[in-house]
């Protein structure tokens, strides 16, 4: 009967092309608006490291104390050098790393070539294993380069392509700001969205970094941060004065694979803050926080509020389109009450009437879904007019969005068809046949 009902449905849709077109357009526009905004929302709200996001944590320590225009519980979103180094030395977590962005000039080997601005991160070797960074060639630098301030560097595939034509460059030397670095590894294209380990310095949706270097080496060379540096007091003069100030500029991440490890680390953090108070460094009630990836992204408001608002508005638009579709379907179905009466008299049960009319509605939904796909494609081109360029760039069509668009169109139309179909199935055949 499926093929029979499909044939009847298509025939019915062809019978009144204007009404059919109205329904298809209503569904198509409603679905396209929803899917376009959903594509943006999905891109910015996804879990960037789903297999591990529950094991990666950001510790925060209230190193500023109350006041400073901050609300209670509003802790600094980075650590000071003093705190970061204390946590690194304690080595309480399974893995831990500090991260801060650096911007250097890449000096080409050719005499005539000009320097290139390169952006990277200073970090520890645990960074790569904690975040499961995929390597194309080589690996991260050894721990000895962290402790020994080694001149290792990990470069990205893109930079490797630019400098070495994509060849295995492990062991080769690049020059950054006049210092030579030995390439220990080349990573594949890797730029999590959002870039969860560095959301405090920008939207979290920027382009890929060019290189990663040992934190200890960067500190040795007195390479300042290329990101935010927030201070409550003016730091003492000089590099050491800044390092030992209360300025916060270092992101800190730990890997805690079990609930027990999380509890242990939380206790450690509380103990550390309490010790700072005892020592007189903090003269306020100690406050610390430990957040996993999703909690951290929420705290940092990584999902732009306009994506949520626009998605809600477009869903409202879809509902309005569906309400219109309900009216159109109702008119279409009830005009066929005499036919329904005849079919019921000839042996169609209510269930068969439901099947016939829901399948017809599904055909409308499918056509609406196809139109919705085309309009979603157009909508993607216009996303940049509404959202920031970094965010708009993320929205794209893929197979899952294509399937979801069609599915939403069909399911939404079926939902809209429930009432008209119920009315159709409730037609009293005797009344229809008498009135004829």
């Amino acid at each position, binding site marked *: 009967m499926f093929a029979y009902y499909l044939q009847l449905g298509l*025939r019915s849709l062809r019978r009144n092309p204007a009404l059919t077109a109205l329904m298809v357009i209503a569904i198509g526009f409603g679905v396209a608006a929803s899917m376009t905004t959903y594509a943006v929302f999905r891109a910015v709200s996804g879990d960037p490291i789903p297999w591990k996001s529950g094991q990666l944590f950001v510790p925060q320590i209230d190193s500023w104390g109350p006041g400073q225009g901050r609300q209670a519980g509003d802790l600094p979103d980075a650590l000071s050098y003093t705190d970061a180094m204390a946590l690194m030395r304690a080595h309480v977590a399974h893995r831990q790393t500090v991260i801060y962005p650096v911007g250097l000039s890449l000096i080409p080997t050719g005499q005539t070539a000009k320097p290139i601005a390169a952006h990277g991160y200073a970090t520890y070797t645990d960074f790569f294993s904690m975040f499961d960074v995929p390597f194309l060639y080589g690996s991260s630098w050894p721990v000895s380069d962290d402790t020994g301030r080694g001149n290792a560097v990990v470069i990205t595939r893109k930079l490797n392509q630019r400098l070495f034509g994509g060849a295995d460059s492990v062991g080769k030397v690049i020059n950054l700001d006049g210092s030579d670095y030995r390439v220990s590894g080349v990573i594949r294209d890797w730029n999590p969205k959002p870039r969860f380990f560095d959301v405090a310095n920008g939207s979290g949706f920027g382009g890929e970094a060019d290189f990663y270097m040992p934190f200890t080496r960067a500190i040795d060379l007195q390479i300042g941060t290329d990101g935010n540096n927030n201070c409550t007091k003016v730091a003492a003069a000089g590099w050491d004065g800044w390092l030992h100030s209360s300025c916060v500029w270092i992101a800190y991440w730990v890997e805690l694979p079990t609930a027990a490890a999380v509890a242990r680390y939380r206790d450690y953090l509380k103990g550390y803050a309490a010790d700072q108070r005892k020592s007189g460094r903090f003269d306020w009630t100690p406050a610390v926080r430990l957040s996993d990836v999703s909690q951290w992204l929420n705290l940092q408001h990584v999902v732009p509020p306009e994506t949520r608002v626009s998605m809600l508005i477009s869903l409202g638009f879809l509902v309005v389109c569906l309400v219109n579709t309900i009216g159109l379907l109702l008119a279409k179905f009830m005009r066929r009450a005499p*036919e329904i009466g*005849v*079919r019921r*008299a*000839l*042996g169609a*049960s209510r269930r068969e009437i439901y099947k016939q009319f829901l399948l017809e509605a599904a055909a409308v939904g499918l056509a609406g879904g196809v139109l919705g796909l085309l309009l979603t494609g157009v909508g993607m081109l216009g996303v940049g007019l509404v959202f920031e360029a970094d965010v708009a760039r993320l929205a794209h069509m893929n197979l899952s969005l294509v399937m979801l668009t069609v599915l939403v169109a069909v399911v939404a139309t079926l939902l809209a068809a429930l009432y008209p179909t119920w009315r159709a199935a409730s037609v009293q*055949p005797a009344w229809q*046949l008498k009135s004829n």
Partner: protein
Amino acid sequence: MLKMTHLSKVYRTEVVETYALRDFNIDVKEGEFVAVTGPSGSGKTTFLTIAGLLETFSGGEYHLDGIEVSNLNDNARSKIRNEKIGFIFQAFNLIPDLNVFDNIEVPLRYRGMKGAERKQRIMESLERVGLVSRAKHYPAELSGGQQQRVAIARALAGGPRLLLADEPTGNLDTQMARSVLELIEDIHRDGATIVMVTHDPELAARAQRNVHIIDGQVVDLAEEPRFHTHADAAAQTHP
């Protein structure tokens, strides 16, 4: 085949109850050809729609082919309609978007019949009503008489044991009416039970038995002097 005992049908509104049928009793034997007559609004069509399980009743009992139907659900009632009952209506009630072949196919589809068997049955019934050449025509392309013959072919294709006809010749001219009635009589000769509602005394006279309904009740014509003439005429023309 069809037995209604003390059956009633009440239409209720907030302020009034209207009895369409009241203490209605009828027993139609298997293979009988019964004509149901009565004035407009007497309850003839209501009786026919209840008999065809197109409408429920308010009280009493109705046995169709030995089955008490009052407690059957929609699926069971639909199945009985599909397998045992054929309908012929005054207004033909063909589906305008389907051609003749597809119209006749409708009840067979609901029966879940295979394509080859459907085709065979449709062609046989079309042959019987003399419309094989019109199989691909749409109802609007046919005359009233042809449309009614298609409706009969649709009823025939299902091989019904009970044929319910509501004023089957009401919209036809005399010649067409005669040919339609001959078809109905053919179906009766093949063993089907026929219940035909009609206003036409000549048509009623061709049935084996006449049942008269007034105010929702079956009336014994012998006790109603104003109908003697019709009853006698019927007896003379159709011994």
